[in-house]
């Protein structure tokens, strides 16, 4: 009986404190919040320890960004040269330069002190669709569209306990792309009685349900040249993959280097284990003999 005394004491104490804590709980029950639907999980080419970006998907995703997203969303931290970087969409340098030339960028001041427009060079960054956030807000009903360079890492979904424990072991970390795909596919008619604010759209995956962005994409809107189905679902996957690359351009390199490092560490750890055993052999032997 004595053995379990501490446990009994601890439980009793916890009970007393617990009662006091509940009694002291002055927090009122939180107001009911709209719970957004959980995004579906897709199988991405870049997931897992050996994942790499799918070049074709990135190129299609870039096409969707260029034709649709870029009308409102900036991509400030990506330069045209990045399109030809290893581990990226796999454009050649000439292609990247050609893409750059289709954009007009502001340069200057020139010798006359004037800013001027010129065709983009490969070293330029993607020019933003609006001169400044205030201009964007004025044109788009008061909301500034987020920059897309880091969007796939800046958005997530809280799966909560116990899911996050499983995710830690299954290397799931694609909640950003899954969320982006979900938002693009989440526009439906609101449930009856849903209080949609003026200018808001209903999106079942958006926290709170009311999103400022009008539905950006519809089936068949972007014409693919490689025979890939022109569906909303496919657009979502392609643009999410493109944005994941934009946010984590070194992913391919990271996975490749990681594998080499793991191989080295496993071999070296094994060797050290046997070294340690050998060095300690006498000590263990001696203490075993003396006892």
């Amino acid at each position, binding site marked *: 009986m004595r*053995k379990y*005394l*501490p*446990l009994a004491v*601890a439980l009793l*104490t*916890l009970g007393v*404190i*617990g009662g*006091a*804590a*509940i009694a*002291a*709980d*002055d*927090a009122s*029950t*939180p107001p009911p919040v709209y719970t957004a639907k959980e995004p579906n999980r897709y199988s991405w080419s870049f997931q897992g*320890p050996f994942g790499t970006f799918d070049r074709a998907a990135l190129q299609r995703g870039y096409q969707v960004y260029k034709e649709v997203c870029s009308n409102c969303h900036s991509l400030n*931290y990506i330069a045209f040269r*990045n399109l030809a970087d290893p581990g990226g969409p796999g454009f050649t340098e000439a292609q990247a330069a050609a893409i750059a030339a289709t954009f007009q960028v502001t340069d200057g001041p020139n010798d006359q002190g004037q800013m001027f427009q010129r065709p983009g060079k490969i070293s330029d960054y993607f020019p933003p669709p609006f001169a400044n956030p205030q201009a964007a807000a004025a044109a788009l009903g008061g909301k500034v569209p*987020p920059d897309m*360079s*880091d969007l796939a*890492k*800046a*958005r*997530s979904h809280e799966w909560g*306990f116990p899911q996050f424990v499983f995710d*830690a072991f299954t*290397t799931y*970390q694609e909640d*950003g792309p899954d969320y982006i795909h979900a938002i693009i596919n989440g526009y439906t008619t609101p449930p009856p009685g849903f209080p949609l604010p003026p200018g808001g759209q209903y999106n079942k995956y958006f*926290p709170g349900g009311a999103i400022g962005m009008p539905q950006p994409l519809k089936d068949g809107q972007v014409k693919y040249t490689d025979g890939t189905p022109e569906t909303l679902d496919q657009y979502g996957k392609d643009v999410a993959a493109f944005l994941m690359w934009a*946010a984590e*351009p*070194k992913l391919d390199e*990271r*996975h490749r*280097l*990681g*594998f080499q*490092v*793991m191989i080295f*560490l*496993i071999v*070296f*750890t094994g060797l*050290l*284990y046997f*070294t*340690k055993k050998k*060095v*300690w052999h006498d*000590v263990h032997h001696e*203490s075993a003999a*003396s*006892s």
Partner: protein
Amino acid sequence: MSLQTNSKIVKWIDYRLPIFTMMQHSALDYPTPKNLNYWWNFGSLAGIVLVIQIITGIVLAMHYTPHVSMAFDSIQHIMRDVNYGWLIRYIHMNGASMFFAIVYIHIFRGFYFGSYKYPRELLWWIGIIILLVMMATAFMGYVLPWGQMSFWGATVITNLFSAIPEVGNAIVTWLRGGFAVDNPTLNRFYSLHYLLPFIIVALVMAHLMALHQHGSNNPLGIDRKGPQDSIPFHPYYTVKDMFGLMVFLLIFAVLIFYFPNMLGDPANFIQANPLQTPEDIVPEWYFLPFYAILRSVPNILFIPAKLAGVICMFGSIFLLFLLPWLDTSPVRSARFRPIYRQFFWIFVIACIGLEYVGSQKPEGLPLVIGRICTAYYFLHFLVIVPLVGWFETPRPLPQSISEPVLRGGAVPAGAVREKP
């Protein structure tokens, strides 16, 4: 043992500046208990991670710009354009997490095996000071990328000092260098984030001096009786620490190469915006238990909840300074303390509970759990530890490290305090 070398150069230097003798004395010949288990690896591991953090930090500082309009951009530059910048930064980010994980294990090893007891009280104190300086360093480092969580974390934490009556607001303005977190705050945090790791290095040296005065504690918690209980640090513990380091690096590498952003907050990929408060302001995982304490405490008598929370949060660490005297048991190791050992594990559960609560909104069930665990945290140190030490009957201690099996009814070694 005197210096063993045939090198004339080494002898010439050592005769004038005895660094080689010193190294031989404190890193090679240094007598160490022969029975240390793998929980004793975490001290040297923490030292190595500190070095990793300093080296990667110095490299990052070469590419970073501490200005509110350029800090976020310079981080993007490091991640996208600097050669292996992504690798250096992922090591530094996750290295901070690993540093705390290792130090927390190191501290709980101390709790379990009574490493804070006579004659190691000052060793313990220096350790707590290292923890406090680490926390300040990590907090200020997290502000540097100037993301949303950097900015709002800095706002919330500096704002804590406004709870101090009368002078609180003046202190907050003084800390921030202005009325809000802004460029002066970023500049001073950068300066201090660069300085404090070197203060930690100095403290680690003091920690080692205090350690080497009486040597390491050990899993049995008894004093060494003679040379037969010790082995030289080299090669025994150098090879054991190396093996432990490799196992650690394996885990660390998995984190860096396969989950580099798992422990971070997605909101920090958005540039700081003073006009837009994130939905949830949550610190990094290593601060969550303390954040839970801060937010769990209700009004206590005439003390408002905010001040009481701040007092309890800082108190939860400062309390550790008193631990060597709060623990009344003469026996160090929990192996021979059947009652304390159970309370130790209940305490671990309470700390894990606080970690969970810190990540949740302070309402409903998490708030209740938070209050229970907070109360238990203080109860553990202030009531349970003193009383258990008083009433518990420890198991008989072995006579010596070399003879773990107790023979006869001899007086347990190290059980009785023999003060000089």
